[in-house]
């Protein structure tokens, strides 16, 4: 898509910064407490000047719950994807560089991980660990590294025969040093793109798991569990359904656009393709 002024990148950056700023400055942006301000006298109020997103069926301010929910979603999204990226890069680098039985093993494991849909796998892990932030980080951080690993491995396999890597080897550099100083800097681009898109996926997965009651436990606000509550009262309080979902949508859209934008930026030829 021929877009003026790198629209993807700009819009993605704008949306992501908006969500991050909202999460960081949540206490300054709203006077209502997301949990304690339950006021049944004031429940099911439509959006107003005092309650921008209205109040839910327990009288809590939806706007402040969405803001505080951003803290949970972003933390989980970013940390889980950081774990995924670290695993993917470490396995992909070492497998692509060393080859042999280690490569076979990593490749087999990657294919195994690809065969199990990551949400299914995460759900199974959540079943064992029980709800909570730490469980979510483990479940989402261990189940979505296969693409990072594949891409890293492929890139390393084509890079390692290049002159400068051979040169580093003749200079007596150790394997780890070559991987970290010669190979890693050259695959940062695609890995960064994968990571950005991965944050969006993790935010979606967290919302889904919390929606199913296996993620963040109420009353702590999370976009997913807000939707669980709201679903019961969707007929009388539709705004309580619309806004948390919109928050997930805007956040994931931001990361997706950012990822696409970074890819276009790194490789202008890809603009036509994706």
């Amino acid at each position: 898509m021929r877009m003026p002024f790198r629209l993807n990148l700009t819009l993605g950056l704008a949306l992501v910064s908006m969500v991050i700023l909202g999460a960081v400055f949540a206490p300054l942006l709203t006077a209502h407490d997301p949990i304690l301000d339950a006021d049944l006298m004031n429940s099911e109020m439509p959006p107003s000047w005092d309650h921008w997103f209205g109040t839910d069926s327990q009288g809590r301010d939806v706007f402040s719950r969405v803001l505080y929910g951003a803290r949970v979603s972003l933390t989980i999204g970013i940390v889980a994807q950081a774990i995924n990226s670290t695993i993917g890069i470490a396995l992909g680098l070492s497998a692509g560089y060393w080859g042999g039985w280690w490569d076979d093993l990593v490749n087999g494991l990657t294919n195994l991980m690809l065969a199990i849909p990551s949400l299914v796998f995460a759900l199974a892990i959540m079943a064992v660990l029980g709800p909570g932030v730490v469980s979510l980080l483990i479940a989402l951080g261990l189940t979505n590294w296969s693409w990072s690993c594949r891409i890293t491995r492929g890139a390393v396999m084509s890079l390692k025969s290049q002159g400068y890597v051979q040169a580093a080897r003749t200079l007596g550099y150790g394997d780890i040093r070559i991987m970290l100083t010669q190979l890693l800097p050259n695959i940062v681009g695609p890995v960064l793109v994968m990571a950005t898109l991965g944050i969006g996926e993790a935010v979606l997965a967290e919302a889904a798991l919390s929606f199913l009651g296996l993620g963040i436990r109420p009353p702590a606000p999370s976009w997913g569990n807000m939707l669980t509550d709201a679903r019961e009262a969707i007929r009388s309080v539709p705004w309580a359904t619309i806004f948390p979902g919109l928050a997930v949508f805007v956040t994931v859209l931001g990361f997706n656009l950012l990822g696409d934008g970074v890819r276009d930026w790194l490789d202008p030829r890809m603009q036509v393709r994706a």
Partner: protein
Amino acid sequence: MGRYILRRLLQMIPTLLAVAALIFLIFSVLPGSFAGTMTGGGRRALSPELVAQINAQFGLDKPLPVRFWDYLVRLVQFDLGTSFRTREPVMDLIAARIWPSLQLALSAMALAVTVGIPLGFLAAMRPGSLLDSITMIGAVSGLSMPQFWLGLLLMYVFALQLGWLPSFGYGEGRLRNLILPAIALGFAPLALLARTTRAGVLEVMASDHIRTAMAKGASPSQMVRWHVLRNVMVLIVTTMGLQIGSLLGQALVIEKLFSWPGLGSLMVDSVAIRDIPVVQGTILVIVLWFLVINVLVDVIYAAIDPRISLR
């Protein structure tokens, strides 16, 4: 061809066993006991005798390697064990859920294919046009939207407000009940297919053999029919396969939301009560589906691309 498919199907067995082992380990090694959750999440203390009795009944008192071996032996006999809760064979529980699950996944995919691919094609034919921009914005939005939120909105508008369609349930397989969950589930693959198709068409249109076709004097429609369609299919069949393959798993939340009696809602319900044999069984079936679709994709791939030979 037949031998190739047979070999590929046999090659799935180690993968399935590995998945079985992985899932088995996760449920056995990590903390948390079934007997505890079975009786109310450990809020009421159970007498140790009762716990031991429950464990013995399900063979949970034996050492881990023995249990794993027993599990594998039963698995190769197509015995997935017995549900902790209903005491029915897991196989029967799954069999009852497979058809609704497939019905939902395949309708979602049919929607994605019949709308997504033509849309991507039209967008690519006029790059930079209004249709192109709308399609691409819609595609990235579709990929960013939580499917269950889309489901909730569809439910709100078409079931609760307009009253055109039922808001949940299987309805003995009536089409009316299928429409909303299928749209909610199919939207993301639709968006992805539109995007991949567009990228594929642009890639093919930029290739040298299209210039040859133009030099031959082919009209745009002849060119598309003879030199573009098939070449684009080669580029999107993998994406399509991955989507179909993972759709059973992706349907978890939608099935739960619409109370659709498929594998996904069976798994979610079983997870909630830690009915581990059922969870293991559903995961295995979901993985099996993915692997079978993969073999199918490779066969189709080889059928449309002469450069790929089935070895």
